[in-house]
Each structure stands twice: as C-alpha cells, then as structure tokens.
C-alpha cells in the first residue's frame, strides 16, 4: 500500500509538469523546450522569495505564477512568433526555445549561482498524514489535489471557454483562425503564459517535495514529462494526469523489484512501447491526415 501511495504521489508531480507542457505541445502543436528552464526559474525564484524576502510560501506561489506567465509571454513573443509561417517552424521552434531556455538559465546562474539551494525547513508545514496504513505528507496530498484540480479546470477551459475554442482553432489552422477574426497572437501568448505559469509553480512544488533545487532540475523532469504526455495521449489533459500516475506507479514498483539503477528504463521503455504500439497514446484520438 505504501508503494502504491508513493507511486501516486510521484506520478502527480510528473503530471503537474506535464499538464502545463502538453497545453502548448498538444494543443498548439509546438514543442517548447524552454519549459524546463521555466520550471527551474520557478523553483529558484520561489526559494529567493521565501528566504530573502521572508514571505510565506502561500504568497510566493502567486508571485512565481505571475513570473512564469511573464516568461511564457516572452517565450512566445521571442522564440516562437517570429517563426510563424516558416516552413521549418517545427525544427526552428525547437532550437529557438532551447536557446531561450539557455538564456533563462544563464540569467538564473548570474542571480543565484550554480549551487543547489533549498527552502527553509519550516517553509511548508511538515504534517504527516496516514491513510490505510501508508504515510505521506500534507504537501504530497496538496500536489495531488492541485494536479487533479488543474486537469479538471483546464479541460473545461480548453473544451468550453472562448479561449479554449480559440486555441483549438489556431491549432487546426492559424490562417483560418485569423480570417475568422481571432487574435492569433494574443491567444498563443495566453496559452504560453498559462503553460509557463503552471510550469513555474510545478517547479516550486517539486522543490518543496525533494527539498533541493539547482539549474538542472527542469531537464531531469522534462524527459519524464515527454513520456507522460505521449503515454496519456498528445493534447489530452486527463491523459497527462493518468499518464503521470501510471509512470509514477511503474517507477516505484520497478525500483522495488529490479533496483533503482534501472528506474529510468521504465519511463523510456514505456514511452518507446507506446509510440510503437499506440502512437496516439491512451487517451489521444488519432488524427486523420487529408490528402
């Protein structure tokens, strides 16, 4: 039971990162590799706000959220929008987002150095809870609740709201969307802002959970998040949550049976298998290409 609970909580962290990631990747069809840098930025700035400014974590999270949103707008404006309409927009967006991510990381390095940093021990109440014989922290429970909540809210936003309809229209055909009077630039910016804001907050929660953050933490989670997105189905928010939970459980059980040195094989093995057997993922719909 403890294993199962650990797996669920590990999975909910993956899901937290993946939900923001898939919003841009799955719906706008752009792979934003600067997302990992935003994750690191959220973690490091969160620590700064709590330690240096002495603010409570409950204030730090909205600040980080706003910072993430701002970074998202910058990423969209600088790394993606100038490429619109170019035949190699996919490749080029990949590279330009890598470049932009490197710039974000270098700024973080200038501000906070390359060392590992931590939240103060009392930043978050260290309450332990017990459920059916398994113990876990209040923080872990909060991460799970936030992940599920985000998934529900965002699914609604994408499916029902005006913004969500705009996002889906742009993904289908940006030209047609512009002709229909949609402000393509603003909707893209909004999507990147939401995605990055979630990524930054995920960075804070992740760091609270493992209690260590450095420049590279984003990259470690990024690959796992890719696996989660593909596993759950590209563009599917419930898929990102379920995919995260499946991966978390699979990893915990794998570590328990074959040892921690093979742990990452689970993520990539699953990713590889899903791509070969069911490329649209568990919840994704297969897109039919028109001739």
């Amino acid at each position, binding site marked *: 039971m403890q294993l199962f609970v650990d797996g669920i909580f590990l999975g909910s962290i993956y899901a937290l990162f993946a939900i923001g990631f898939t919003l841009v990747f799955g719906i706008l069809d752009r792979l934003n590799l600067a997302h990992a840098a935003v994750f690191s930025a959220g973690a490091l700035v969160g620590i700064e706000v709590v330690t240096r400014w002495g603010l409570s974590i409950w204030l730090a999270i909205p600040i980080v959220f706003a910072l993430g949103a701002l970074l998202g707008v910058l990423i969209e404006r600088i790394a993606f929008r100038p490429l619109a309409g170019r035949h190699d927009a996919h490749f*080029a967006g990949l*590279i330009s987002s890598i470049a932009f991510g490197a*710039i974000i990381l270098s*700024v973080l390095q*200038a501000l906070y150095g390359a060392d590992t940093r931590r939240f103060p021990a009392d930043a978050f109440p260290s309450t332990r809870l017990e459920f059916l014989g398994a113990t876990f922290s209040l923080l872990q429970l909060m991460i799970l609740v936030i992940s599920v909540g985000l998934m529900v809210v965002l699914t609604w936003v994408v499916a029902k709201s005006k913004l969500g309809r705009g996002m889906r229209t742009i993904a289908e055909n940006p030209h047609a969307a512009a002709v229909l009077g949609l402000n393509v630039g603003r909707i893209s910016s909004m999507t990147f802002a939401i995605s990055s804001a979630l990524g930054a907050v995920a960075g804070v929660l992740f760091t609270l959970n493992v209690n260590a953050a450095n420049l590279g933490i984003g990259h470690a989670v990024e690959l796992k998040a890719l696996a989660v997105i593909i596993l759950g189905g590209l563009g599917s928010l419930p898929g990102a949550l379920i995919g995260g939970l499946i991966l978390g459980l699979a990893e915990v059980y794998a570590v328990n049976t074959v040892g921690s040195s093979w742990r990452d094989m689970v993520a*990539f093995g699953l990713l590889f298998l899903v*791509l070969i057997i069911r*490329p649209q993922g568990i919840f994704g719909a297969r897109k039919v290409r028109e*001739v």
Partner: protein
Amino acid sequence: MFEYSSLLTFIALTAILAFSFYAVLIAGQLSLAQVGLASLAAFTSSLVVPNEPLFGFIPPLLIGVVFGMAVGVIAAFVLGLPVMRLRGVFLAIATLAFGEMVRIFLINQSWTNGAQGLSFPKLVGIETAWIALALVAFWFWRLSGSRMGRAFAAIREDELAATTMGIDVPRYRMASFVIAGAVAGLYGVLFAHFTRFADPNQFSFEAAVDGLVTAVVGGTTFFVGPLLGSVFLSTLPELQRTLGIDAGWIRPAISGLLLLVVILFLPGGLAGLIPRRRSSTKLVSDPAALPQLEPLPARGTEVMSLRGLGKSYGGVRAVHDVDLTLATGEILGLIGPNGAGKTTLVNMVTGVTAPTGGSGTVLGIELAAKTRAHRLASAGIARTFQQIKLFNRLSALDNVLVGGYRISRDTLLRRLVFLPSARRFERQAAAVASAQLIRVGLGDKATTAAGDLSYGDQRRLEIARALASHPTLLVLDEPAAGMNHVEAERLSELIRSLAADGVAVLIIEHNVRMMLALCDRITVLNFGEVIAAGTPEEIARDPRVLEAYLGADGDAAAATAAEELAEVAADAVKGHDDAAGTEDAR
C-alpha cells in the same frame, strides 16, 4: 599550439556528429538516436580494438572504426524497423527514448565499467579526425547531386508527392537512418579514442540536442553546413575565454543569444550565407542529350480496368461500384459536382487510397489494400494533385528532375569515384526534365523555387513533373483550375498531343466546356456512383447529368458547369439542326 590542435580535433569530431544529424535532416526526418548509436559503437569497439596492428599492418583504429560503423548501421536498421512508421516529433521522441535506453543499459553493464567510465587508448589525433571528416563531407557532397540526394530532398518537401513519383519512401527513409547510424558509429569510436575516456552518461539527451543544434545552426541545405556549425559553436567558448568574458554565466548567455539570432534571422543556417547558384542543375536544351526512352505500349492497349471499385469511410460510401476502362491514346474525362468522389477514385487508381470494395487492375498491378503508390508509379502512372503538391523549396527544374526518377538511374556510387558515366546520366536526366519544362512553357523559370511561382505556373510545373516520368497513364486532377480560357486551350492542346503520342489520359476537370471538347469519353459521378458514361455528345444531352449539377445546391462550380452543359447541349442540338438545314453550322 597544443591547445589549438585539440580544439581543431574537437571541431572535426563535432562536425562528424553534426553530419549524422544532417544525414536524416536532409530527408526531413528528425532523429535523436545518433548519440545513443555512437555510444553503442564506442563501447562495443572497446571489445574488439586490438593493442597491436592486426596481421602486423591493419591499424587498430581502422578495425574499431569499421566495427563501430557496422554497429551503428545494424543498430540503426533494427531501431528503424519499428520506428519508421512514426513521423515528425513522434519520431524524434521515440529515437530520444531509444538513446536514453541505450545509456541506461550501458550504465548497468559491467563490461562498460558503468558510470565510472572506461579508458580507451589514444589513437585519434588532429590528422585522423580531419581525414575522417573530409571523407564524410565528401560522401555528402557527392550525394547532394545524385538521384538519391534528390529523392531525399523530395521526401523532405512532400512525402506523398515523392511516393507518386515512384520513390519508395520507407526505403529511402530507412537509408537516411542507416547512413546516419554509420556516421554516428564513426563519431562514437573516434570520440572515445580521442578523449581516451568515456562514460555512458556523456552520450545523453543534452549531447543529442547539441548535435542537432550544431547541424541546424550550420544549415541543412548545403553539405558544408555541419562544419560551419561546428566551427561556430566550438570556437565560441574559446573566443570568449580569449577575450576574457568567461564569468560562469556570461558564456551560456552569449551562446544562447547567438543561437537565437542565427535561428531567427538565418533560416538556411550559416551555410545560407554562402552565395550559391539557386539551382544545382542547369537547363539542358540540347536535343542530342536526350536518352532513348522505352516506347509506350501500342495504341489501344488497355491500361486500366476497374470492376465494381468502391471506397467507404465508416458508413459513408465515397465511391461505390465503379466500372471503368481506359486504353492508351485515349482521353477519359471524369466530371461531377463537388464531393462526387472523383478525387477519391483517382486516389484509388494511383494507389494513394486503398479500395474497400470491388477490384481493379492498373498497368498490370492489382489494386489492393497493400498496393503502394510508388509501385504503380514505377509501372508508369503519373499524376498531378487537385491541391498542388510541389517540392516548394526546390527549383522548378529540380522538381521536374525528381519527376524523372523512374526513368533515370542512381548515380551516387558512380559520382563517388567520378566515373564519366555519372555525368552522362545526370545530363540525360537534366535533358528530359528540361524538355518537359520547356514544353509547358516554363523554360525561363527553371531556377525559380517552385513555391515562388504563380498559381498557373505551379499547375503547369506539376504537369511537367508528371510528364518527366515518361508515363503510360497520366492522371490530371483539375489541371485547368485557375487558368484563363487561353491557358486552358493551350493545356487542351498539350493533352491532345500526349494522347496522340499514345499516352492514356484520365482527367478530372470542372471546366465542362473544355472537357466536352477534349475528351474521347466522359464518365459522370454523383454521390460516388456513375450516373452516366459515354461520348461528350451523349453526356451533353443526358438529362441526368444536368440534373446532378443543378441538384448540387450552393455549389458555384456546379452551377457554372450546369450552365455550360445547357449551352453546349443547345449548341449541339442547334448544330445538328443547322447541319441538316444549311451548310453554315455556326
């Protein structure tokens, strides 16, 4: 001097890694497996590289390189079998997963010494690295003007169009994958024997991204790209160190900024800065250069016969129970309102869409679920598309050269050793392509990129590309769309002359006036079924045809067609009456 020699060696090795990405990028594939393949090659080579020259004269490094490249090729092939079905970003992620799986596997093996890393003998210096780079660059230089190089470019631009030119797309995609594997294997072995120490964690996702970035920054449209990318990205940190601006964070900041600038403002990468002729080939208008082409089958040979052919999507019957035959020298028209199933029918005939009912034979090939478009194309079918599918970034002439794929020979091996026959074959292919380009009136636009041509010119270019394959059966899907009356008339003349040469022509067109004047026979489709078939006169008089067009509410093209039909029918009746009365028919 010593530090420069290691920098120069490093530049050469990075360029080789970039070439392994270049190998797949030129075919439009994004694979991130190369670093994993390099890692496999490097570590397995440690098992076979001897301490002493084999038989006293074969250098140990050569054995390692040959072995490593073989490992790269085999591993790329085995990986390619399952992942080749994937495209774009899915392919990138699957190959990335493969690379990480290799890394984790090697870390957990005792013979690789795991994460502690393995020592290698120092066998690679500056000369070896640059000789290897020169050989790799030479290969890609000679590839670029060969038929294989053109096939890669065509696949990158438009896979479907490439297939209908007779290019076996899966085979070529696999070829690009395997070439990348060989180059990656070479890189892995050289890298390990240069740094003298390697652990599997060095061949990580970040390393793969670095390789990709080097290739893209250098540019993937010209074979010097990877070298330029490597020089740029390898010397940048050195330069900053020399200038004294290497405080921890400044270096990555400047690298990131420069990378961003290159990507945003130099779409062709650094190689795009090198002035070059826009087209790799020149127009060859010398008729003596034209090769002897195989004669077409005798006039009247049946090349297509459909028996009850149908296609349904879910429960929707797009095409239902169509019987149709076509012989060489004949022009068969296919008309009907929008959504009548004309394009679906043509897609089945050309192997693009698999039929779900009935049977059909085209050029001796049975239409079945497994019939692939490139096989039909090789048999002698060529087509144009309703929605233009050109290779937009290639010049007009290069587009037509790809069209000539079926009747030209692969010249890569000959080009590698500069055989004179390579030149001759390339000149023949260029002559065929030039002749077709001139035939459709685009001779003066040979070097213009296809994407920059006007709409009408693009339509004509598609026809020239189809003709360049010397087809027995030519399929034209709305070739006159967007053309004015004069242009459409010129097109009709061209089609008539093709039929006179013995080509079988299947044509879809909304311009009913043109179709009635041009076709020998016309078949009318509505809601996926044949509602009328016969000579143009019979069609023009058939009330069901008029009704089908008039019934298509809100379809402007159908309304025009209905008007034209009515006019032509009236003309025909009048002509008949007039002919009966006086000599003056009109």
